[in-house]
């Protein structure tokens, strides 16, 4: 079944980069959606079903930390796996985001394979 993927980042070129990288996975992607902050992401998630959320942390309006909190507090949305893609590589931040409910964490800069591996691990996609 094709998967819908939401990419949340305040940088349009980073959203494009992530989208291109997800395209390198063995995933059957139905639809890509993009949001520039947590607020926009929540709005989209309440309108249509997404199978995976890839989110930045540092964003205006609503950051990635608050987005993960909001998703966790929603009975339905909390079932969607979230992978954080952030420049913050501090161990305390990684642990904090995982404790909040994120399923994976990739630090920018990342090799395309690192993001691909994380996405495939979390969605259980076998390697070709």
């Amino acid at each position, binding site marked *: 079944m094709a998967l819908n993927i939401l990419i949340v980042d*305040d*940088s*349009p*070129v*980073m959203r*494009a*980069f992530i989208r*291109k990288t997800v395209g390198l996975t063995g995933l059957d992607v139905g639809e890509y959606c993009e949001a520039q902050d947590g607020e926009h992401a929540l709005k989209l998630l309440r309108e249509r079903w997404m199978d995976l959320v890839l989110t930045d942390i*540092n*964003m*205006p309006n609503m950051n990635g930390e608050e987005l993960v909190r909001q998703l966790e507090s929603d009975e339905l949305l909390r079932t969607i796996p979230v992978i954080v893609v*952030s*420049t*913050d*590589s*501090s*161990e*305390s*931040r990684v642990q*904090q985001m995982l404790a909040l409910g994120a399923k994976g964490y990739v*630090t*920018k*800069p*990342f*090799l395309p394979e690192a993001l691909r591996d994380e996405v495939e691990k979390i969605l259980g996609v076998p390697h070709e």
Partner: protein
Amino acid sequence: MSETNYDELVSGAVEAVLETMFFSSPLGPAEVESSASVMQARLAFHGRPSGTLSVCLSEPSARLLAAGFLGEDVESLTDSQPGEVVCELANMLCGALVSKLESNKSFELTSPELLPQNPLATDPETPPVARQSYELENGILTVTLRVKADA
């Protein structure tokens, strides 16, 4: 922390970011470029310590970097993409640097913004702790790191 080697931190971050996400690498050190057609992005970081990081590069270099980053031809870039890529380069360099400065604590980064011309204007309040220029394939990248003294 004892003596921080800011120059080493900057060059390590530049290499890591260019090689992993831009499929490019610095060809060597260069002189600071004082050409008129440059793009500069700056952002601030807050934590221990706080400061700013800015990157500056010529427009042709910005376009080449953007094309490499997005996997597109230079001709097919939109007008805003080179600037957006310069901002994201500043964001990633800053994240990589600050993570090394303070590896156990999280920090806040502001959103990078493109600055108007005259990019290397000095900030008398906070002299840079590191300013390095690198030769890229088609121009020069200058990275300036300023760290505020603890209040």
